[in-house]
């Protein structure tokens, strides 16, 4: 038996999301004398989305029943690099309140290059220089030229 394609799984997940969001529309505060209830438009959009998801699911089911290759099966490509980048960005965001945008940014750009690029000694110095110049420059532009108060960090405040 053929397994469900990724598209079918996405359609199912979206249908579950639609069901939850539709339920949530009943929790909206009721407004007296409103010409259109705040829930009308979201419900319309959710129902539309659900209809499209059902159509996508149906297309996939018919494709499987007809023995036709449906949407793509489980993604064969490794997305390890993307996952690492997202993870590093999340860590950068977690530590920013403590380290501040400048130090956290320096570390982030340097570590990203180390993870993605070559790791010999010469490259390490190049990565460090790129991180220092780019992050320092950007920090200076935003802080002094655009007057944006970037997070200073608990560490520097101490």
């Amino acid at each position, binding site marked *: 038996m053929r397994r469900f394609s990724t598209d079918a799984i996405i359609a199912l997940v979206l249908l579950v999301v639609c069901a939850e969001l539709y339920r949530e529309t009943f929790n909206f505060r009721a407004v007296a004398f409103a010409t259109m209830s705040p829930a009308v438009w979201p419900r319309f959009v959710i129902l539309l989305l659900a209809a499209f998801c059902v159509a996508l699911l149906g297309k996939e089911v018919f494709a499987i029943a007809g023995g036709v290759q449906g949407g793509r099966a489980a993604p064969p490509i490794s*997305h390890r690099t993307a996952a690492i980048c997202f993870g590093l960005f999340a860590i950068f965001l977690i530590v920013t309140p403590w380290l501040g945008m400048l130090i956290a940014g320096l570390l982030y750009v340097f570590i990203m290059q180390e993870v993605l690029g070559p790791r010999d000694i010469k490259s390490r110095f190049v990565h460090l220089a790129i*991180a220092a110049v780019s992050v320092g420059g950007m920090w200076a532009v935003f802080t002094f030229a655009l007057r944006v108060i970037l997070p200073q960090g608990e560490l520097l405040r101490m």
Partner: protein
Amino acid sequence: MLIDNIVVAFASVFTAYNMMLMALGAFTGLIAGAIPGFTITMAVVLTLPFTFGMEPISGLATMLGVYVGSTTGGMFACALIGIPGTPSSIATTFDAFPMARNGRPGLAVGIGIWASFFGGIISAVLLAVLAPTLALVGLEFGPWDYFMLIAFSLTMAASLSGEAMLKGLIAGTLGLLLACVGEDTINGVARFTYGIEPLKSGFAFLPVLVGLFAFSQLLSDLSDTEKAKVPMLPKGSQIARVEHRAAIRELVIHWTSLVRCSLIGLFIGILPALGGSISNILAWDQERKASKTPERFGTGIPEGVIASESANNATSGGALITMMALGIPGDIVTAIMLGALTIHNIAPSPTFISTQPQLAYGIIIAYFLANFVSLALCVPALRTFVTLMRIPLYAMASVILFYCAVGVFSLDNSLFDVWTLLVFGVIGFMLSKFKFPLAPMILGVVLGPVAESNLSRSLATSDDLSLFFTRPWSLFFFVVAVFSIVFPWYQAARGKARWAEFFMPALAIVLAVPTGMMGGMFRTSAAAALLGFGLWRTVRQFHQPAPAGRWNWFTSRRG
């Protein structure tokens, strides 16, 4: 009146400060557009954070500089390395790269630069003439018509996804749903916030955009780690000298191609949601069909480069016409500009040009000047591009990802926005991997609140839902929306299934109904012409049956 407005707007745009910002924007755009993997949308999105603190006209001048610059810059990579810098310059590669390989890289770049310039200027002039006229038509629209126009924009964007149109529709609806998060603009009721305080104001526009377009795109580019480590241009690569005189000579010889393709680009730009990525291929294809020697296209001939480059630059002007006259984005970049304008509390609509003429004509003048600035900066930008292409992608991407975070933070001094960026980066990456188009989603985010407010206004005016289908303009947009949904099947079936031969005549006949309902001499004549054309083509198709056994009504099976 037009001249007065233009003179006043010119004075407000043509200041040293604005011109400096525009030049900076154009230079950045030229380089960003040239680097494969960096799209025009990314370039404009990443410029947004710098423009928030500026006066609206200064911010728009900067963004228009980036827009025009990146549209032009896309062809550098086409000519020099055979990879389109942006999707808007795919067709440029067909002839510019062979021309460069035939020993004329300077001519290829020169023709690209000048064709882009003239394409942009032609569309700027028509922008000044057509935008106020279209805005007058837009004044006829009621909320029902606007609602249907938005529906048409979304179906049009989704239909561009071709066979994955269903995914395009899902992406568009997801965008509409995202726009519902936070307090609604009509009653101030919190929706889908799940008790999260920062969500009360909804998702900020910038983090969503940067996440969907820049963050996810960069991570897609980085997926191939080995490729990301290697510079795109080898060390020691030399820049070709741009042959300006020879390029201008070619443009004079092929001026009809230049004008024809600029008009094609402009028309595509005016249609909601269609952008340069369509127009450049369409113009190149039309030019090939119109040529007496179509077999020479793709071998490195000037007409091929002129067609693609003049069309993609003219598309920008067309997209601005729709944005300024109707408040509907003509392409994804103008959708971003629309969002940027709302941040400055300016909402383009049919009354925009008449109520804010200085700003409206300022946009036209800024767009006009941006073409000159971009032309002047092409050569220095080309040198910088060659230098930058020696930096491996992984180093550039690491710095840009950090810049995304700082830029998004600067919007509201909020780390929550940067988390939003990360979340939408993940969503954008996943959607791209599963072949969901992102353009309909962002159109949904931009147009969602407009659609909801027009629905509310229409229901407040009348509870008669049939008005959505019986008013002339509503019916007009409903018809084109339905036909745009069927369009991908029509494209696939053309020349194979018989029903496709009747698609265009049917569209003409059906469109004649709302056009005739609009009344007036011109529109009644147009309706009659549409009806006549549709009936003539239908009768002709019936009297000229396809060769027996060659094809049938609904399938593409032959024999």
